[in-house]
């Protein structure tokens, strides 16, 4: 017999009886059987079948007490403002000219009327508002010194305030002209805004192997400070570094100054914004501009040499000089109006007007890697002795380009950059004047530091504050250095905290004075008074 459906589900056309039906056909019928289930043995599904019966821990009650979130306020931003940030807005904004025109036509008359009324009005004459408590007196806030330097009889040769106005740095050295190139000296900084300021302990002391003659803080980076040494070198220190703070130095190369560097300054770089280059001035007659190389060296970028033969006519310097005599430059100040024009003071007693745009090469004997140019354009009438300090007025206007010069004849000359004769000649004292500075806030105020040289027996030093508004003949205030009379060699106004004036003297102390309000608040018409003063005198 044949077995039908051997493989199951085999279909045939008809199910006809084919021979005797096999009794096992029912075994291969289609049927669905429910799948077999096996209960999961995993714990989680088992626990899903569980029910909480009771709990052993007591119920914990909670309430909200406080939240840790606090309100915040913007205090300051760390990013620097870059000058390129502001785009040219005129291209971005869509302006509807017709509506703009109709607006302007509507308001023009009203505005012109108000402008006219304002011009003629005397309503506010003599009206002044006191926003700040008036400070009546001049106080000595701090007397800072470094005892170790004082023990070595070192003098304060130069001062500088940093970019934020809270740190004052001073350089210790000696200004008496003897060879101090190997005598150790210091640069000390004090942070006046710190609590727990100890006037006898500077926050930072940098040991320098040679006498430091001048220091200058970087105008925007608060930790960089540059110093000029007796040996003619320049060094830049970074006060934020804990180990060796020296960042750059010129070293002793063929380009370095051969005489002490008397003034060092940071110049804004014309080519790269927000970048500054170092400028140094020395009695070897050279004014050098340095750029920073990557290996920590300062390389000469450009330079000027002041040579007696190239100083314009009518000066005594030529008569005394044979050959190419360098003119010893003691100080320098840039004009705030024209960044290419600067004034230098020389040992011969002449303030000289110079320009960085000068092209003529200097007749300088010693070779240097960059050719030096002769910058002098005009020689002003001289002082009776070497000029130790010049200062250009920071309040500039188109015509007004005033600067001050002071020298060992005890006189301060007020010059305009346009003429050789001084506008005003003030005999401040019989003593040598070592430093003169314009006030950064009041156009009519300047300060001068005086003190006798070593020859005379009396050595009192004063800081004189002059105010042209009060008197053009004598100082408004002479601050005697209390306790010990020593010549004051340097002084600097604090441009950020404008009531502070620091003065350093030969005893190695730096005194920080707080000026009274009348020296720090600008009156409403001061600029005009200054212009008037200048024009009165020229007439």
């Amino acid at each position, binding site marked *: 017999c044949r077995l039908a459906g051997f493989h199951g589900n085999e279909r045939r056309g008809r199910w006809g009886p084919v021979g005797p039906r096999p009794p096992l056909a029912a075994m291969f019928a289609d049927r669905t059987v429910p799948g077999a289930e096996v209960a999961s043995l995993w714990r989680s599904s088992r626990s899903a079948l569980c029910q909480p019966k009771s709990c052993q821990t007591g119920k914990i009650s909670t309430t909200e007490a406080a939240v840790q979130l606090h309100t915040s306020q913007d205090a300051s931003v760390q990013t620097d403002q870059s000058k390129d940030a502001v785009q040219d807005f005129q291209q971005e904004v869509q302006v509807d000219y017709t509506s*703009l025109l109709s607006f*302007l036509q509507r308001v*023009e008359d009203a505005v012109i009327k108000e402008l006219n009324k304002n011009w003629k009005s005397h309503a506010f004459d003599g009206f002044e508002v006191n926003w700040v408590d008036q400070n009546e007196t001049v106080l000595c806030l701090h007397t800072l010194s470094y005892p170790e330097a004082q023990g070595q009889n070192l003098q304060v040769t130069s001062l500088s305030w940093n970019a934020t106005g809270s740190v004052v740095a001073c350089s210790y050295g000696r200004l008496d002209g003897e060879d101090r190139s190997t005598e150790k000296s210091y640069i000390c900084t004090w942070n006046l805004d710190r609590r727990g300021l100890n006037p006898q302990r500077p926050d930072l002391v940098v040991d320098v192997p040679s006498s430091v003659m001048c220091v200058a803080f970087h105008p925007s980076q608060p930790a960089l400070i540059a110093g000029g040494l007796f040996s003619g070198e320049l060094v830049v220190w970074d006060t934020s570094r804990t180990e060796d703070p020296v960042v750059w130095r010129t070293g002793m190369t063929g380009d370095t100054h051969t005489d002490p560097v008397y003034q060092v300054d940071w110049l804004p770089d014309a080519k790269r914004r927000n970048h500054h280059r170092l400028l140094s001035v020395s009695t070897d007659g050279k004014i050098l501009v340095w750029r920073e190389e990557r290996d920590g060296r300062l390389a000469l970028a450009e330079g000027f040499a002041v040579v007696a033969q190239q100083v314009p006519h009518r000066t005594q310097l030529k008569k005394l000089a044979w050959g190419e005599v360098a003119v010893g430059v003691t100080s320098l100040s840039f004009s705030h109006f024209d960044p290419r024009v600067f004034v230098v003071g020389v040992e011969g007693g002449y303030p000289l007007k110079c320009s960085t745009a000068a092209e003529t090469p200097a007749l300088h004997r010693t070779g240097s890697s960059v050719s030096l140019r002769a910058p002098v354009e005009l020689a002003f009438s001289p002082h009776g002795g070497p000029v130790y300090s010049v200062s250009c007025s920071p309040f500039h206007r188109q015509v007004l380009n005033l600067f001050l010069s002071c020298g060992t004849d005890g006189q301060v000359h007020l010059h305009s950059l346009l003429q050789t004769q001084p506008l005003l000649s003030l005999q401040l004292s019989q003593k040598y004047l070592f430093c003169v500075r314009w006030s950064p806030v009041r156009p009519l105020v300047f300060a001068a530091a005086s003190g006798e040289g070593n020859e005379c027996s009396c050595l009192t030093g004063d800081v004189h504050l002059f105010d042209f508004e009060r008197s053009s003949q004598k100082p408004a205030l002479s601050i005697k250095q209390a306790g010990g009379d020593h010549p004051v060699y340097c002084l600097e106004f604090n441009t950020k905290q404008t009531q502070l004036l620091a003065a350093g003297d030969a005893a190695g102390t730096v005194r920080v004075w707080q000026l009274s309000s009348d020296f720090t608040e600008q009156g409403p018409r001061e600029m005009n008074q200054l212009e008037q003063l200048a024009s009165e005198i020229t007439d």
Partner: protein
Amino acid sequence: AEVEETLKRIQAHKGVIATMVVNAEGIPIRTTLDNSTTVQYAGLLHQLTMKARSTVRDIDPQNDLTFLRIRSKKHEIMIAPDKEYLLIVVQNPCE
């Protein structure tokens, strides 16, 4: 062109230091100063003008701001407000 003429006339007036036009959002449209100073003036004075206007209207809802003058030690700032624009003129009134 007429816009420039009008602004030139105002700028040429005695003692005027700066002139600028600012739109309703505080964005400067015309100015005689440099970019960064203008943006500073525009932002600050726009806010001040809005505050001044709301002050006037809060005190008396029928009133509205017509002119704003700020006198300082060094100069006077005059602001002529409008729905869409603000004209700011800075004058030094010293003779």
